[in-house]
């Protein structure tokens, strides 16, 4: 066993029980006094077990008093470890790994670019929905769904925005393109809200369809208008229903001979939305009013609106076909100053042809 001598009291003891203080060896009782003296004299008072000086602090190799051993701070190191302690370099594999990590981060950010785009659009859309700007939100949410049609959140937000702007087609597409309408959480607040909106919209549409069926017969026009108004008020966001209800009001007014109301509604529709359908409706109202009053400007304006309806229809075959059914009837009313119903006109002049419904 290695032994050494205390420099203060001369005790010879195992190095395990001795201490080193500023290069001097002390036994346990003497080291306390020596440390106090060192402190008072401005020297370091830190001492360490002598055994620690005999072994490398890093690899535990016995170094005893080897001349190659180096003291660094309070610890001693063997010749092999000392350079490592001085400059512990990064291992090559770590450098490669960290470079790879940076590369992966770049790949991750580049790869995520399309998702950032989709996500940003979704958050903007969500923010706009929260502000009640549903029409503005819809294009953002559609953009998100283009990249991620499976996103529950985007699909529900898009459906909500679409339903609250009366865009049933967009709502249907957002919902059905999402895993055929299946959602992860059928009890979430967002799902329940959209489900409730969807049901409300569909119930309104059912009512509107019933109203349209009823409206096929003139005698049901008042009931049809009432039902259509119910549909429009239960789903006010779908403005088409309101316009349809007003159209039925106009139809009912025509049936009961209230041409002032009919003309007023037709004028409103024309002002709100200038199209071939509203133009021909106004032409008809003006023609009827002319039949009753004989006021020439009404006749002239009616003819003018017929021309306008043709212009607005342009090359739209469907619109032109619809106009073809009404223009002869309106022209007949103007030329003969006689109001006859569509059915009567069809009976007289379109027998054998496809009747107007």
């Amino acid at each position, binding site marked *: 066993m290695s032994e050494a001598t205390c420099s203060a009291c001369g005790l010879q003891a195992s190095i395990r029980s001795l201490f080193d203080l500023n290069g001097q060896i002390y036994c346990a009782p003497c080291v306390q006094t020596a440390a106090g003296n060192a402190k008072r004299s401005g020297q370091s008072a830190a001492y360490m077990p002598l055994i620690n000086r005999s072994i490398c602090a890093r690899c535990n190799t016995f170094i005893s008093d080897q001349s190659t051993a180096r003291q660094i701070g309070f610890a001693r190191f063997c010749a092999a470890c000392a350079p490592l302690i001085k400059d*512990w370099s990064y291992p090559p594999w770590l450098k490669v790994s960290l470079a790879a990590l940076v590369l992966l*981060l770049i790949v*991750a*950010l580049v790869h995520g670019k399309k*998702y950032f785009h*989709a996500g940003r659009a979704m958050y903007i859309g969500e923010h706009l929905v929260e502000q009640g700007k549903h029409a503005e939100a819809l294009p953002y949410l559609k953009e998100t769904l283009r*990249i991620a049609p499976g996103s529950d959140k985007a699909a529900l937000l898009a459906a909500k925005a679409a339903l609250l702007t009366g865009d049933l087609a967009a709502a249907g597409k957002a919902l059905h393109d999402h895993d055929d309408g299946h959602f992860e959480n059928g009890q979430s607040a967002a799902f329940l809200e959209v489900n409730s909106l969807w049901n409300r919209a569909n119930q309104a549409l059912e009512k509107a369809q019933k109203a349209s069926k009823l409206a096929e017969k003139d005698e049901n026009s008042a009931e049809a208008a009432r039902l259509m108004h119910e549909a429009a008020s239960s789903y006010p966001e779908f403005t088409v229903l309101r316009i349809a209800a007003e159209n039925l009001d106009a139809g009912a007014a025509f049936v009961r001979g209230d041409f002032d109301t009919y003309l007023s509604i037709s004028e409103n529709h024309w002002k709100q939305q200038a199209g071939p359908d509203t133009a021909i409706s106004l032409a008809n109202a003006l023609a009827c009013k002319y039949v009753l009053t004989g006021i020439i400007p009404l006749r002239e304006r009616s003819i003018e609106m017929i021309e306008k309806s043709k212009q607005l229809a342009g090359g739209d075959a469907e619109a032109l076909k619809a106009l073809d059914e009404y223009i002869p009837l309106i022209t007949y009313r103007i030329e003969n100053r006689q109001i006859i119903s569509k059915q009567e006109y069809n009976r007289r002049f379109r027998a054998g042809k496809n009747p107007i419904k």
Partner: protein
Amino acid sequence: MFFIPGPVIAALTFPGVIIHEAAHLFFCRLFKLQVFDVCFFRFGNPAGYVAHQQTENFNAQFLISMGPFFGNTLLCVLFCSAAFLPVWELKVFDPLAYFFYWLGLSIGMHAFPSTQDLSHLWAQAPALAKKGNLLAIVSLPLAGILVVLNYGRVIWADLGYGILVGVLGPIAIFRALAR
């Protein structure tokens, strides 16, 4: 609550261990402290370590102890941000995104400094805080919280932190950017 042995968790999330120790080493080198030994990863407890010389410089001690916390957290947020949207919000099945999410969470899970890292900080901070050292004042509650969270590892506090950072971090970033 289910128990998974530490070495298994460390093996599943080894990138975080390596980055944690690399951050310790980086700050030790930055402040020119002697490094006695480094283990970047092993199947044991702790899964990695950096044995280094102690320092009286509190700033150095703070960064050596807390450096991995900030570094791992930042990398967790960055990797998870790239993967968060397809995995959590957009529900896009993209294996690469899942890989990046695993990487981000692995790094985030090993953000906590060890109790030993914190003990060095804890030993120096109170005296300096009394003298008005701002960093010491800030580090005291932070170290306190982290000590508690360290004990919370048995109930998956480290995973919780990773998820918190990897989910809430990106959400906060994207929401801020979208406004």
